[in-house]
């Protein structure tokens, strides 16, 4: 069994063999992956050592102290948080060996081709078709809300392979080559003025059957792994006090006494308390995970942060008075990262509107909490036994 001391020894060996100061960044990251120190809870040979996930912090702390380069996790969040756990759980040995290493080092960026214009909350109703043709599948359809599509080498894709069975049963999960000429990525401009997301048009794209993940028709089950990890990734960040959106508002309050009113003061204090309590809840959830007692609290974290981000940024715009009437930049750009801190309050206000939509709307997540955590009756289902092709649309 790998323990903390063992991990420290292995990290020291990695650093000795590949001193960060004199080693190329990518060479270092590859060597780290091959030493099993990329994600220690992954299996040996796939960047890990089969160690408890909680021990990753040991490696990270040693590497940070040695000023070693990291894999810029924010840039490759979809690959790390969603594609990788799905490939690990459902991929063949060959698929795992081919995809996980360049995914983790960031050499290959991943995106997610799930949502469609006609399939948002009801994702399982998706209509992008994949038809078997010899050793390939021929895919046609349109996907939307795809962040990083313009940077991505690969995509995780779910498509309809059998329209004659109920919607959840006729879906198959694929790895799609984003450099295929049949994949067209168009920026999708948002309320913020920039295009963080894309529309992706898929025309006669041939995907070899060897890039299928899981069984044909079993794609919905596979997608659950991806989606569960997405919600953990969205709600699970560790923050210091005032580490979230409350930080800039509190700073403005302290530095700009001329902006203060009694009404804003009351609202600010209330939101400050809620932000602090949400932070403590996140910390408690993290402690539960480390102690091996995962609770259902994670389901609530995204709900809480979505609402708080929106209310706090809304207050911040109001606090700024005349400045709140301005906006820093409407230029259409295609950012690689969502940067809440580098922009003004108006941007934070508009961007956080998406927090209650992306990764499951607040309304759907409340249903999930009510049904899976509280055990209340499920919503009535009229589509359960209806073939996908016969659904209302």
């Amino acid at each position, binding site marked *: 069994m790998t323990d903390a001391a063992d991990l420290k020894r292995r990290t020291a060996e990695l650093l000795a063999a590949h001193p960060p100061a004199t080693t190329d960044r990518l060479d270092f990251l590859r060597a780290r992956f091959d030493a099993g120190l990329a994600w220690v809870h992954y299996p040996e040979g796939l960047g890990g050592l089969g160690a408890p996930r909680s021990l990753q912090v040991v490696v990270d702390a040693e590497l940070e102290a040695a000023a070693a380069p990291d894999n810029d996790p924010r840039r490759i969040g979809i690959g790390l948080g969603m594609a990788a756990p799905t490939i690990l759980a459902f991929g063949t040995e060959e698929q795992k060996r081919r995809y996980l290493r360049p995914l983790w080092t960031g050499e290959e960026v991943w995106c997610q081709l799930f949502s469609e214009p006609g399939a948002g909350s009801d994702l399982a109703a998706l209509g992008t078709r994949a038809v078997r043709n010899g050793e390939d599948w021929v895919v046609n359809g349109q996907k939307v809300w795809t962040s990083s599509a313009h940077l991505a080498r690969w995509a995780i894709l779910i498509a309809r392979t059998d329209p004659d069975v109920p919607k959840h049963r006729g879906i198959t999960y694929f790895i799609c080559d984003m450099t295929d000429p049949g994949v067209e990525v168009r920026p999708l401009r948002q309320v913020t003025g920039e295009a963080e997301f894309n529309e992706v048009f898929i025309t006669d794209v041939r995907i070899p059957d060897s890039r299928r993940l899981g069984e044909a028709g079993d794609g919905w089950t596979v997608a659950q792994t991806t989606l569960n990890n997405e919600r953990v990734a969205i709600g699970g960040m560790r923050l210091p006090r005032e580490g979230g959106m409350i930080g800039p508002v*509190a700073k403005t*309050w*302290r530095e700009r*006494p001329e902006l*203060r*009113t*009694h009404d*804003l*003061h*009351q609202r*600010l*204090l*209330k939101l*400050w*308390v*809620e932000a*602090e*309590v*949400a932070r*403590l*809840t996140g*910390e*408690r959830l993290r*402690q*539960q995970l480390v*102690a091996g*007692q995962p609770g259902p*609290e994670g389901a*609530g974290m995204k*709900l*809480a942060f979505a609402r708080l981000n929106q209310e706090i940024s809304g207050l911040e715009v109001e606090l700024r008075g005349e400045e709140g009437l301005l906006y820093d930049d409407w230029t259409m750009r295609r950012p690689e990262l969502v940067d809440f801190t580098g922009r003004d309050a108006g941007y934070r206000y508009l961007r956080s509107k998406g927090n209650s939509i992306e990764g499951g709307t607040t*309304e759907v997540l*409340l*249903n999930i*909490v*009510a*049904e899976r*955590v*509280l*055990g*209340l*009756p*499920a*919503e*009535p289902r009229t589509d359960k036994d209806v073939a996908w092709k016969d659904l209302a649309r």
Partner: protein
Amino acid sequence: MTTQRAQPDLLYSEEEEALRAAVRDLLTDHCDAASVIARIESDTPHDLSLWKALTEGMGLAGLLVPEELDGQGATHREAAVVLEELGRAVAPVPYLTSAVVATEALLECGADDLLSQLASATVIGALAVSLSVPAGSAYKVVRFENGALHGELTGIADAAVADLLLVPADDGGLYAVDASAAVITPQVSLDLTRPLAKVVLDGAPGRLLGDAEPAVQRALRAGAGLLTSEQLGLADWTLTETVRYLKERKQFNRPVGGFQALKHRLAQLWLEVVNLRAAARNAADALSTGSHDSDVAVAVAQAYAAPVAVHAAEEAVQLHGGIGMTWEHPAHLYLKRAKADSIAYGTAGRHRETLAGLVDLRTP
């Protein structure tokens, strides 16, 4: 008592869970809702036989008292767990007032003989400061004149069963007064499970324990911090019971809990209770370690807890429909306790004002 950790411990230890199970077992057997409802309008609203079982039987009155003074030498973390369970049962016992608030005041004064009496529960103590007063605020004092105490104090929680009153006087001292030397008159209280009383001292003899100010502040701060755990217990019970009832109750040929409007309300409430648990654990942990952050932890917990407990109890009444409005159903016990708790040891708004100073978010 100044252990500092980088992060507060927000979980429950195995020992704490075992303590919870023991207290819950006792309350299940001895504190059912029907008997609490019957008791609150009687001459003896407090359940002293339950108090005896909790204290003499389990030693819980002495959790905060060192072992050498006949206490358990435990911490606020364990006392918080007891209060969660007492809150879940709206138990009419003077635990918060005697085993926490009065005990903290005596700890500050170093009144070892009295501490040992409170810890062994041969004596019930009450701090003679109105339940509505938060730490850091002014409180009413009595006159110290010719070696005796004179004055009238109102809003004193659980004074009706107290044997020992801890009375602040105008000379800056905190005095121990035998309850038999005072005239204690029950006040008709919103929360009949933690009734208030008026205390009149007319030349009562008192024993000077020490300076009132630090003792009262310490007591009120601990009371506010641990009240959060009681509020968590109230909210947890009302949510659990409402969810249970709505799975069972059928209207329009369906369980009422299947309607999305109600599911969303209950899910929101669940989220609030989850948050409250983190805030309550944080306050209890900060008090137990003597953390430099405990003023902030207590203010945050109290600013958050009262609206959640009241919301949970109000939802319980509404979502139970007609039955929730009856005297026979226990929902009103929780509503009244939650509402009274929202004033006890300072309202949420008062704690937000305190916080404004602590975290430098000044008033305009």
